[in-house]
């Protein structure tokens, strides 16, 4: 059996790069940082591919199922003899798959950033933060226990915060980074509570023990009931709260659109391909517990995912900032992944949803990163984020145009591109659960195709605008990652994904059910064609429709007033009814008691200070009087 000890280096190399570039990057020319960072990630990527090859082909299976391997483990913090926090490397199908996704996208983004960030202030800082992020994300997916995952989870949040606020002189970027950090942090409190309840109930942090379907953690049942739900259900709901915060699920999604203030490669890496799917990964990692011990929590996952998906898809149709459209699209696709996990069962054919979710995560990473990097190339060329200031760019940006089109076709689910296969599996999983969910999935697909092609036609077709200068194609260092990712967006779906990643590790036969595939493709084509009619030539149909929809359109355009709702809740309710009484209590009761103590001390001391007159003989007089009085008292006591 092969020794997987080297997998530690997949994680450690980005950390080393972070330290090197962070401390010494400014001593060299900026481009050196970029090259060092990119080559470091290249090594990590090569190691990941090697690991995947070895893991999937050279590790003996037990009963046809892929095993969970501990490649490396060290005790980091020993709490009791039984309960200790480890740091290590866990290899199983989903973590190996995530290693590939993260290192590939991260490598592409590094390469792309060499060109995109050229001439920016803080070039080295950017690359060191990118490496820090890659390190944290890789550490998260290979976590052997939930506590290690939590540590890296927070690290990912920090690096996301740093990168969103990269342009720290821009007020909106600073506000967005704070918003992202606070919202995800708030969700992470839930995650921590979930971890504590879970580890208290089961007595372990270890994933292998926790998720073994025959293990004690699952067979001991749900634990005591509280408010009609078992302890395990509560802990899983809290854990999912953390996942929902990171994965921008409703109602904790408000940070994601604002996070687009960060540099575009960051959006591609963190807010499209990797960090935001951490929530999905978390649920997938804990899936057996969700399924066996907390089915109610799994239903919550399903409903939240489905609702977020359709909610975000509707908003995406109304936005004009291309990055925001992509952000809402990301939220919608992640909603689909959550939804697929929610409808999934465990093992064999029942685990189709699980497989579909992971498959979609895999393909989505490619085409969404491609879309973001393409959007970056467009923004780079026209210096604007707004699609109504773009148009007719297909002649100026041929490579970006083709790759963007491929990504749009892929996400819209047109065969034989990657998105078709994964989305088809999700729809099939939904169909197994109920017809309503299937129709919901089809609606989301149609909306997805519509807003993606709205974006595509508005940018590349339509009327040509007056640009400041003729838009020009991005340099090679930026177009090569686009082309590579486009290859991924085309061919990733052809992988026999179900043979590798399934809920119980046993390979699954993947088949395309025409009864599902045909409607799915038809709605995708329908959405795309509608967008073509609306936006290919300049028409007044979109305006007519938006005025016809009236209030609903305005609500969707204002993102259903979620930001306003949050402001209302925080400013008007929490500030007025919680913070103010607490502040009053602090000022009057806490400070007041302290002030009272000092006031009393001060008063008493002014009254009695005249005793200390400095007159030696007065002191002596008091002393002698006291001594005589004591002597008399003793004599009196003795004689009686």
């Amino acid at each position, binding site marked *: 059996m092969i020794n997987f000890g080297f997998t530690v280096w997949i994680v450690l190399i980005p950390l080393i790069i972070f330290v090197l570039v962070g401390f010494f990057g400014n001593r060299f020319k900026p481009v050196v940082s970029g090259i060092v960072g990119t080559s470091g990630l290249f090594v990590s990527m090569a190691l990941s591919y090697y690991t995947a090859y070895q893991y999937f082909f050279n590790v003996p299976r037990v009963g046809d199922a892929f095993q969970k391997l501990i490649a490396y483990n060290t005790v980091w913090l020993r709490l009791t003899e039984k309960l200790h926090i480890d740091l290590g490397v866990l290899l199983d199908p989903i973590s190996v798959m995530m290693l590939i996704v993260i290192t590939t996208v991260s490598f592409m983004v590094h390469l792309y950033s060499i060109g995109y960030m050229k001439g920016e202030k803080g070039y080295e800082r950017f690359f060191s933060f990118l490496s820090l992020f890659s390190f944290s994300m890789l550490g998260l997916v290979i976590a052997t226990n939930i506590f290690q995952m939590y540590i890296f989870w927070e690290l990912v949040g920090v690096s996301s915060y740093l990168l969103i606020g990269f342009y720290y002189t821009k007020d909106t970027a600073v506000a967005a980074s704070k918003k992202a950090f606070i919202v995800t942090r708030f969700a992470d409190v839930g995650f921590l509570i979930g971890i504590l309840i879970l580890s208290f109930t089961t007595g372990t942090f270890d994933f292998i023990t926790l998720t073994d379907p025959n293990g004690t953690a699952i067979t001991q049942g749900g634990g005591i009931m509280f408010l009609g739900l078992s302890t395990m259900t509560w802990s899983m709901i809290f854990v999912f709260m953390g996942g929902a915060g990171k994965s921008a699920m409703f109602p904790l999604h408000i940070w994601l659109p604002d996070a687009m203030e960060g540099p575009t490669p960051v959006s591609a890496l963190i807010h499209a391909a990797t960090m935001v799917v951490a929530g999905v990964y978390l649920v997938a990692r804990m899936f057996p517990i969700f399924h066996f011990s907390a089915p109610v929590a799994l239903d919550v996952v399903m409903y939240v995912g489905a609702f977020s998906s359709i909610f975000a898809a509707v908003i995406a149709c109304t936005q004009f900032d291309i990055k925001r459209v992509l952000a809402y699209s990301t939220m919608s696709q992640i909603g689909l992944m959550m939804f697929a996990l929610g409808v999934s069962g465990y093992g064999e054919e029942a685990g189709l949803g699980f497989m579909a979710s992971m498959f979609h995560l895999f393909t989505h990473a490619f085409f969404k990163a491609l879309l973001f990097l393409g959007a970056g190339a467009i923004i780079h060329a026209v210096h604007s984020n707004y699609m109504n200031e773009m148009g007719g760019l297909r002649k100026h940006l041929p490579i970006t145009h083709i790759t963007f089109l491929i990504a749009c076709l892929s996400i819209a689910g047109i065969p034989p591109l990657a998105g078709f296969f994964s989305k088809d599996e999700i729809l099939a999983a939904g169909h197994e659960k109920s017809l309503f969910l299937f129709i919901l999935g089809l609606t989301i697909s149609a909306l997805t195709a519509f807003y993606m092609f709205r974006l595509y036609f508005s940018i590349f077709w339509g009327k040509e605008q007056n640009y400041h200068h003729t838009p020009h194609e991005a340099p090679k260092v930026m177009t090569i990652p686009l082309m590579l990712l486009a290859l991924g967006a085309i061919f990733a779906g052809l992988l026999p994904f179900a043979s590798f990643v399934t809920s119980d590790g046993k390979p699954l036969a993947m088949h395309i059910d025409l009864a599902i595939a045909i409607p799915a493709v038809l709605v995708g084509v329908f959405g795309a064609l509608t967008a073509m009619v609306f936006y290919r030539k300049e028409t007044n149909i979109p305006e007519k429709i938006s005025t016809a929809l009236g209030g609903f359109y305005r609500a969707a355009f204002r993102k259903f007033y979620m930001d306003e709702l949050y402001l209302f809740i925080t400013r008007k309710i929490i500030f007025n009814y919680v913070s103010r009484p607490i502040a009053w209590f602090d000022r009057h009761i806490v400070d007041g008691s302290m002030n009272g103590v000092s006031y009393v001390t001060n008063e008493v001391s002014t009254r009695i200070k005249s005793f200390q007159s*400095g007159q030696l003989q007065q002191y002596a007089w008091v002393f002698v009087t006291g001594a005589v009085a004591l002597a008399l008292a003793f004599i009196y006591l003795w004689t009686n």
Partner: protein
Amino acid sequence: MFEGVPLTWFLIVATLMFFIGIYGFLVRKNLITILMSLELILNSVNINFVAFNKLLYPQHLEGMFFTVFIIAVAAAEASVAIAIIINIYRRLVNIDVEKMEEMKY
């Protein structure tokens, strides 16, 4: 004990000396006089030591030794006190105890 001199007489002398010393310590304003009063107090205690030693344990000499100790310590104390008084005099050109109230609150 010395023939014909009862203990009470020693004690009367010692008590008189003691209270004269206390009186001087409390009433006189001159630091040198206060120091002299202090010596009176110490010596009255010495008389007590010697008298009681002779009366209670004629074979032993602890009381005598204590007296010698007290005389030695008193000498040291007197020299330190006089040094302090000289310093005070240099500073204030005065050795009136009531004028020295810089250390009050």
